[in-house]
């Protein structure tokens, strides 16, 4: 519990609205498949991800289950939940951190050494992917991750299943997680294939405004001198956001998206020369999630605009050696041009 106290409140982070929105949207709708946060060092990337813990909603899980089985949907072969009368627990969505130095067996799971040596039994020792099921998998410096780990990650992120075929263990379990990665682009880019796996991508920069920067220092100072007090002060705001997220989660399934809006999304993707279809699918889902977050039943063009800003920067077919990024104005113009057209008709 001690560690929890020292978490900086999410709502106390100054600026970086797009990053915060990206994170929140993923909490509301885990099928957005994660967010990649690109930025220089010291831009509150990691702080924000860790702070997420406070605003995460609660889910039902089977007590002590290594795979966080959903009581409504217990895995057929879950070695833990098969025994009758297990308790159901309400607990917050977990953030599992994947250190850059992780070994493959730790990530995907391996033979339970103790059991094997003591009794000669083959049993699985679940890895980080099992822990992250129904939760968030956070990789700091994701661009520095070892290649074969990236491959494994890609594999299970794509399939939603972690398949273990190693060291005498043949097992597979669902691994649906929100992948959150942070990286500093100065240290090398991410492979396009992994890039595409992240539903959303935000580029963040240090804040330019002097007042904002002063505010950052002030809050940081306050926080460090008395974290408890500071957290208390921001508690209501965090709670507000938390409630809003819970509401949005319920609301999401009711959000409608008009065919005209879908058409808009497709033509925007075509216009901007986006690789593959994942970009469009993500834009659609993101726009819907934004609408849900705003408690609206129908997706509007502003939602699409915001969704494009989050979903497209890393998917635009780049000229060789061009920076990852997106001209906001292009999207804005494109969308507003049509608003004008529509209103003319």
């Amino acid at each position, binding site marked *: 519990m001690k560690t929890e106290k020292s978490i900086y409140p999410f709502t106390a982070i100054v600026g970086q609205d797009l990053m915060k929105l990206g994170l929140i949207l993923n909490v509301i709708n885990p099928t957005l498949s994660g967010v990649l946060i690109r930025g220089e060092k010291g831009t509150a990337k990691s702080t924000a991800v860790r702070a997420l813990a406070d605003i995460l909603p609660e889910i039902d899980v089977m007590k002590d289950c290594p795979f966080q089985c959903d009581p409504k949907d217990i895995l057929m072969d879950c070695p833990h939940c098969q025994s009758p009368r297990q308790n159901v627990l309400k607990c917050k969505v977990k953030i599992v951190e994947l250190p850059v130095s992780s070994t493959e067996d730790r990530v995907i799971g391996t033979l339970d050494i103790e059991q094997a040596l*003591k009794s*000669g039994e083959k049993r699985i020792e679940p890895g980080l992917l099992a822990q992250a099921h129904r939760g968030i998998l956070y990789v700091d410096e994701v661009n520095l991750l070892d290649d074969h780990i990236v491959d494994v990650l890609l594999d299970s992120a794509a399939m939603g299943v972690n398949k273990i075929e190693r060291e005498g263990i*043949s097992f597979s379990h669902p691994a649906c997680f929100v992948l959150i990665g942070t990286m500093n682009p100065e240290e090398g880019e991410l492979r396009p294939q992994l890039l595409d796996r992240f539903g959303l991508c935000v580029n963040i920069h240090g804040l330019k405004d002097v007042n904002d920067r002063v505010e950052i220092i002030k809050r940081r100072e306050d926080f460090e001198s008395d974290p408890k007090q500071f957290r208390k002060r921001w508690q209501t705001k965090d709670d507000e956001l938390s409630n809003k997220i819970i509401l949005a989660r319920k609301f999401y399934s009711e959000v409608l998206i008009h065919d005209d809006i*879908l058409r808009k999304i497709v*033509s925007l993707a075509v216009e901007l020369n986006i690789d593959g279809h994942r970009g469009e699918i993500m834009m659609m889902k993101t726009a819907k999630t934004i609408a849900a977050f705003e408690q609206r039943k129908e997706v509007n063009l502003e939602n699409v605009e915001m969704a494009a800003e989050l979903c497209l920067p890393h998917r635009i077919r780049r000229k*060789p050696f061009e920076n990852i990024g997106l001209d906001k104005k292009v999207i804005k113009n494109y969308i507003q041009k049509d608003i004008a057209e529509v209103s003319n008709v």
Partner: protein
Amino acid sequence: MLLTQQKNIFPFSAIVGQEMMKEALLLNIIDPTIGGVLIRGKKGSAKSTACRALKLLLGKDTPFITLPLSATEDMIVGSIDFQEAIKSGKKQMSYGILHKAHNGILYIDEVNLLNSHLVELLLDAASCGINRIEREGISFKHAANFILIGTMNPEEGEVSPQFLDRFGLSVSIDNELNIGNRLLILQRREKFDKNPDEFVFRFRGEEERLTKKLKESKILLKQIIMPDDHRKLVIEIVLENNCAGHRAEIIMSKTARAICAFENRNTVTIEDIQKAAAFVLPHRTREQKEPETNPFRPSERKENNKQDNKDQEKNKDNFRSSNNGSKDNIKNNATDQESNKNNSSDLTDPPSGTASQSEINFETGELFNLRKLDSKKDRVFRKGSGRRSHTKTKQKVGRYVKSIMCRQDNDIALDATLRAAAPHQKNRGRNKNDKIIIKDCDIRSKSREKKTGNFILFVVDASGSMGAYRRMVETKGAVMSLLMDAYQKRDKVGLIAFRRDKAECLVLPTSSIELAGKQLQDLATGGKTPLASALELTGNMLQTAFAKDKTVRPIVIFISDGKTNVFYSGRDPLEEAFRYAVKLSDEFPAKYVVIDTESNNGIKLGLAKKIAIRLNAEYYQINDLKADSILNISREVMRL
């Protein structure tokens, strides 16, 4: 032991477009002896979705087994069941993936990323249809006939030619361009996400119809007639396309038959054969052209962009005229085109401003050189790939690939040790609840493999003499191609350029290939040749590299004419350069390559060669200085 619920699989018949891919998969169900399919395509083009959906179309007696990239050797071929051995003292097989996949489909996602060592196992079993197990005291074999289905994104590297040949068919897929279809994709996805059960139910009829059709085709297949003329045609097509071996023609006629059966006809037509050829030949034809565009290949890309843009314009027009009938069309299109023009000129124009009067920034010679590269690509590139970056490692890092008998560094392979110890437990007197008795002779160590991103240091002469005869253009093209290759192998690269008075490091060792590429494009040529300075700087950079990682295997590629003419420390420049060259090769065990850019016209001094001798380097002449030959050189070198 698959725990996931099948209801959440997107139905095959709900996949929009990508007809080639869908057909290739279905043909394999009709006739499994076609031997699988390799689907090549960019990310997000429904490759994996289609393969997973295929599973539901298979009969119950056809297994669909997924091979994860992280699989270990023993799990693929099978091994002793240690649990059983410990409990009962009996040696019993625990079957591997190859056994499970017998008479079924073995599916590998991102097949190009599969460890080469596992690829060999698969090839071995696939070529004789039998999996032989000789390990841990068991000798066993079983039939292993499986259909390989793989997906890959060619941006991430290639597959070896032998492996490629194992896939009966191959298809390259691209994005759906039709806006209507794209919209349909989105709508279906939306419905699927909202209510998967309902969505699957909605397509159940179609899925059933397809399954029935496949069954009928299977029966019909036996009655298909192939006219003799058509057989000849098949062989002619294969010969014309210069395919190795006979597999191509065999698979092509099988495929043509399957197509014929699927279309519910009795006699194979020429169209069937043509269609089959499109599936069978692309990955077998030598001197083929890669259908994909490469992320770092601006010249091709430019054309593609133009093409795409044209399509887009068309699409946009359709869309607009049908929907809003806006009158701004022409105006918009005009401005769009103008901005396109600007964009494309950005690609080729060298950035201005960096070049002073004595310095010229030459364009990067991609267009010519890389086009050349294409044709050679198949033979050279694939042979080298996969091996170059692998190395055994003694540290406890890297991927555990297999277990070995000798003991090293306490990096014990527990699973293998247990398997070795298991059969002896009874003899060693273990009682029921005792701990396992392990003796020294049981201990197995992990053999690990790590990708040692090679460090490639380019030392490029940017003096005035390099400006002649498009040398710099070609050099840039070559280095750029190497950078692309380095991206796929995840190498680190560094760039030193020397001109005027001294050498300077333009790119510190980085895995950001993009950064190196940018610097290279901006590299201006002019001034004298400070070779000694370049050699010294190379030494400094190698020293840092070795200090960071002792196992690094740097490759240093000098590209120069060797006509050094800058007094570095008051001595004769050439002597100075020789001295540094000897020192460099003595101190740092790197692989050195010198590429001589001296022209053949006029008097030859052969200075670069002399330097190469002192560096103990491999030496190549300017005549080889075509992008593809430089590339081959470094690939030869890196294959070690």
